[in-house]
């Protein structure tokens, strides 16, 4: 996503920076700030110390008050900057796309095959357009005709071009590099990927997700507790005399204690989470759905094709008695040379890996293409031999005396969940090629990771039981339901939900719509029907069902990042107390013993307080990368995850500020401020 932004001309970068800065200051408006109680308190504190600065009686306290005011102001600015920056990351791309769409015109096909230029906004669902090399695609749609290379970098940030063939979806804003396509538009204006993404990015700042609301409530109460602690500390400290503590220091203590780190970054985390979803080319209709995906207990994969590479591959030659593997392989090789389907190519590859390549001579003859009628393909060699491969039944009809072993082998292959393909020369059956569904690489490991995280994967497929079970076993899916109709899928989801589980599922067909709507997270494929896309709460533009796994990771990362920064924020307070409490009472003789708490050896009381405040401010921009990219996440069990994060954010959250505040105090010392 960042790529496209970076590829923009330099003037755009400047403009974007200016926009971020503008937003940063607009967000300082107290009315806007009010939605973030933590930072609102800091803003109020800034006003209080500013007033104290202006009314200070002597130069030294004016300098101190002024410095505190400046640091508080910077703290607030850092917070609004973090939010503005996160928003701009999503918006930069959205704006870019919005511009490219605005200029896009489309060649609208008429019924007679000719076309007219029309404006992109006038395109409606069902219209057909023609796209030629160099055109910017004017709307989302599905390729009907043609094969062409597409530059999708504007959306995906990937510079490599993508080949589009019939059935593939194209996305508005992308650019056609070669050839031409006929595309059927699948969305009405306002519903395109672009529109949804803009809505999501812009909506993220306003609409809080359930967990965000809960966390905000807790942060609000924590802030209230610290306000209470600091406001009552004034009167209680007066026990030792009227001038025990000054108000500026109390404000400084308050700002250090309230969870400013998470308060400043909370909305940036949410916005960045939505951006990460958009980055993997998934359009989420709400932030709630993304967050819910972190809680998924059961993953329902809607068909075998979801987890296999989609093409069956030849994996074994099984000759009938009396025929060698070599003979069968050679015949299969010759019969498949002209076959350009993935299955045909896989037969050629398998044969070549078995046979010595030098011994293979290019056959001379006429290729016989596959036809639905014969259910065979092959080659008629110039020496008169006719080699055929095809459905077992068809070959059985073809040969004179089918050996019983042929049928037995074929049945055995079918029982294993593979597809048998018979091969014959003239009227003699040679044997069977085993065609097998191959599980996508890496998926098995991924399912294992998800199992460790407590997510159960269930394959609910309309395929026959044997095929489904074999694929399921190979992929390491936990459970499989074969020969299920759409109602069955719906019932399965309801059953899981009845047990209190959160269910995610993928689907593309219209008959999947009820199940997609019932699931807590329904990921519809972009190539799927409108009904499916309407029913789901997310759409994957690349129509890759395993994308659900990525979405789940984004959801989890979102929650982890919030938890980590909250924990860090609170853990930080320990060191701040050790800096500020001894310093704030240093002027009271009877309390001087408290300087024993100054374990960091901070030089002067004012220096100590300023150091703590500066650390408190600087930690915000320092953590922006974590807020925006998310805390590193590896799928593993909750206990291991917790242990690691508690160490990184809880334990180190206590330690780091001691070092940081000590370091800042040394630096201040160089400038004579400490």
């Amino acid at each position: 996503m960042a790529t496209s932004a970076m590829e923009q001309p330099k003037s755009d970068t400047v403009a974007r920076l200016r926009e971020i800065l503008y937003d940063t200051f607009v967000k300082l408006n107290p009315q806007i700030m009010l939605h973030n109680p933590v930072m609102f308190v800091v803003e109020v504190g800034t006003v209080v110390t500013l007033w104290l600065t202006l009314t200070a009686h002597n130069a030294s306290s004016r300098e101190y008050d002024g410095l505190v005011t400046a640091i508080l102001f910077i703290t607030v600015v850092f917070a609004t900057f973090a939010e503005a920056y996160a928003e701009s990351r999503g918006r930069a791309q959205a704006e870019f796309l919005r511009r490219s769409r605005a200029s896009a015109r489309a060649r609208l096909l008429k019924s007679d095959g000719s076309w007219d230029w029309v404006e992109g906004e006038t395109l409606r669902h069902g219209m057909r357009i023609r796209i030629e090399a160099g055109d910017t695609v004017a709307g989302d749609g599905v390729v009907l005709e043609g094969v062409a290379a597409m530059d999708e970098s504007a959306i995906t940030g990937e510079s490599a071009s993508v080949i589009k063939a019939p059935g593939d979806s194209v996305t508005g804003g992308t650019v056609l590099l070669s050839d031409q396509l006929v595309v059927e538009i699948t969305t009405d204006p306002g519903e395109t990927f672009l529109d949804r993404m803009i809505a999501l990015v812009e909506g993220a700042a306003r609409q809080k997700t359930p967990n965000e609301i809960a966390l905000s409530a807790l942060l609000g109460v924590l802030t209230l507790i610290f306000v209470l602690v600091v406001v009552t500390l004034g009167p209680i400290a007066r026990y030792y005399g009227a001038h025990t503590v000054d108000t500026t220091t109390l404000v400084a203590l308050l700002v250090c204690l309230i969870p400013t780190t998470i308060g400043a970054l909370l909305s940036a985390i949410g916005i960045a989470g939505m951006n990460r979803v958009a980055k993997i080319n998934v359009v989420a209709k709400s932030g709630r759905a993304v967050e819910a995906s972190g809680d998924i207990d059961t993953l329902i994969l809607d068909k075998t094709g979801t987890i296999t590479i989609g093409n069956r591959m030849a994996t074994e030659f099984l000759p009938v008695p009396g025929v060698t593997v070599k003979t069968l392989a050679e015949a299969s090789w010759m019969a498949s040379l002209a076959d350009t389907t993935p299955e045909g190519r896989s037969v050629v590859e398998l044969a070549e890996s078995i046979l010595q390549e030098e011994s293979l001579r290019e056959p001379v003859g006429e290729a016989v293409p596959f036809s639905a009628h014969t259910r065979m393909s092959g080659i008629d060699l110039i020496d008169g031999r006719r080699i055929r491969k095809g459905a077992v039944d068809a070959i059985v009809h073809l040969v004179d005396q089918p050996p019983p072993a042929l049928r037995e082998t074929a049945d055995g292959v079918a029982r294993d969940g593979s597809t048998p393909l018979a091969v014959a020369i003239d009227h003699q059956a040679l044997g069977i090629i085993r065609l097998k569904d191959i599980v996508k690489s890496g998926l098995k490991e991924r399912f294992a990771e998800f199992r460790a995280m407590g997510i159960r994967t269930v394959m609910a497929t309309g395929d026959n039981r044997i095929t489904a079970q074999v694929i399921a076993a190979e992929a390491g899916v936990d459970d499989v339901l074969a020969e299920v109709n759409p109602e069955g899928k719906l019932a399965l989801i309801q059953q899981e939900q009845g047990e209190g589980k959160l269910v995610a599922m993928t689907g593309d067909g219209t008959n999947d719509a009820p199940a997609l709507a019932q699931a807590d997270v329904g990921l519809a494929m972009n190539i799927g029907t409108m009904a499916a896309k309407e029913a789901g709460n997310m759409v994957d533009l690349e129509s890759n069902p395993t994308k659900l796994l990525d979405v789940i990771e984004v959801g989890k990362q979102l929650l982890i990042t919030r938890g980590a920064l909250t924990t860090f924020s609170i853990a930080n307070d320990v060191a701040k107390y050790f800096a500020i409490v001894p310093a704030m009472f240093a002027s009271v003789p009877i309390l001087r013993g408290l300087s024993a708490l100054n374990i960091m050896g901070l030089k002067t009381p004012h220096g100590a307080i300023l150091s703590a405040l500066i650390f408190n401010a600087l930690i915000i921009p320092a953590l922006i990368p974590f807020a925006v990219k998310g805390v590193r996440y590896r799928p593993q069990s909750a206990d291991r995850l917790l242990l690691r994060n508690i160490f990184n954010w809880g334990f180190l959250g206590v330690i780091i500020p001691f070092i940081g505040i000590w370091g800042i105090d040394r630096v201040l010392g160089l400038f004579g401020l400490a």
Partner: protein
Amino acid sequence: MSVSTVATWVVVIGGLLLLCKPVGIYLYRVFTFQPTLLDRPMKPLENVIFRVLHVTRESNMSAVEYGVAFVLTNMVWGIMAYTLLRIQGILPFNPEHFGNLNARLSFNTAASFVTNTNWQAYSGENTMSYFSQFAVLQFLQFVTPASGAAAGLAFVRGLSGRKLGNFFVDLTLVLTRVLLPLAVIFGLGFVALGVPDTLAPYLHVHTLAGQTQVVPRGPIAGWEAIEHLGQNGGGFTNANSANPLENPSALTNILQSIAMGLVPVAFFYMFGLFTGKKRLAWTLIAVAGTLFFVMLAMIYFPEAAGNPIINALGLSGHANMVGKEVRFGMGGTSIFETSTMAFTTGSVASAHDSFLPIPSMAFFLGMFLNMVFGGKGVGLLNMLMFVILTIFLMGLMVGRTPEFLGKKIEAKEVSLTAVAFLLHPLLILVGSALAVATPAGIAGVFNPGPHGLSEILYGFTSAAANNGSAMAGLGASLPFYEIALGIVVILGRYASIMAMLLVGESLLRKKAVPQTSGTMRTDTPLFWGILLGSIVILNALTFFPIMALGPLAEHYLLMAHHLFT
């Protein structure tokens, strides 16, 4: 450490650990209405009570109904107590002819006893008739802990997915099945060990020095039993369990320590049985137990090492025995005081005012936390409040919406829990600030320096925690304190219980999510560490400044051999 110290600790702590399981099982059976040993004698009595109250064992209430029943019942008892104290002079069983109590003291006493605080702005032997002692105060010592336990029960039921139950049924059963039988056993035990129990007038004795001394006595043994079993803590006499007639020997001292912890610890185990998660219960017992040991160490070691200023003068043996009873020694005193602060009883076997600053911080710790087992039911409620807060704060780090016992913790639960957490510091800090900032409050301070401030803080902390112990030295009988502390005890008791009842009901309504390996586990050593850490940090962040101004400042002055003249 002497052999007797170790032996005393082992007997008390070992006894509590051994008893928590059988007593927990017994409590579980009683409150799930399964047959127990006491069915035969108690059931007919209970049936009569239930018939009068128009309830059955199966009756149920919503959280609001339960809370309202709890508060209203307490209010009726409070008004009753107030009235009876105001007209004490005309009531029977008053051999010493004590007069009516004034309005302020009656309010303070009624509020304090009805909230299970038992803060005493009076000295019993010079103020209360026998009637007031046993019919008013001792009555409240039975029913108020029972109502606190009932609230805890309702919350536990909610968490375990059961209906909350009926307040009046729970209240009755806590009394008939738990407090009354135990009080009979312990009361007889105390009588056997030399605690008086009589309605005869005070003794007038001629001392060896040839003078006449009045020895106050009365129905003390029964009082001692329920005072400790109910974590009440109000003494029959002013000296409380330091008085040899209330707590005559090392043995009664051990028995009273055990009596305080018996039901609160068993309540934790009972929680495990209700929820079917015994490992979770043991984890929570381990967390509270760890804090108990921390308090014990903070009290014992500095006291045993003695006052550095006096040690430097070479004046005495090492231990700081000021304000302590020789018959208990440092071992017996430290375990009794740890128990009374941990279980929020508030009875004392020594003068809290004369403890060194670090041990007094242990007293504060017990009251700030209010969940080192705490009072029965209420302590568990506070522990679970911290569990919920911790799970929400840390639980996000496993990448799931935080859940406890399979129930998702969302905005409503977090807000209510956080508010319950907020109330405690609110009362302590605002109360103390008012006391320091107003002449009426400052007038009660008789000690100079940080110790005087500690006394104010102690008063409000004790009231907010419904503990009831006092650091003597504060003018607690001044109008300001009688009224302010009276208000604090009431708010401290009811507001947070109400909030937690609503949390319990809200969780009850949620559908349980099955546990997977993706769920944060709450029954592991890791969770023990996390819970302990977050309890310590959350409380330290809230109370560190006032601790720095009070006991910590005093500690450093002591280390610097600073004297106040």
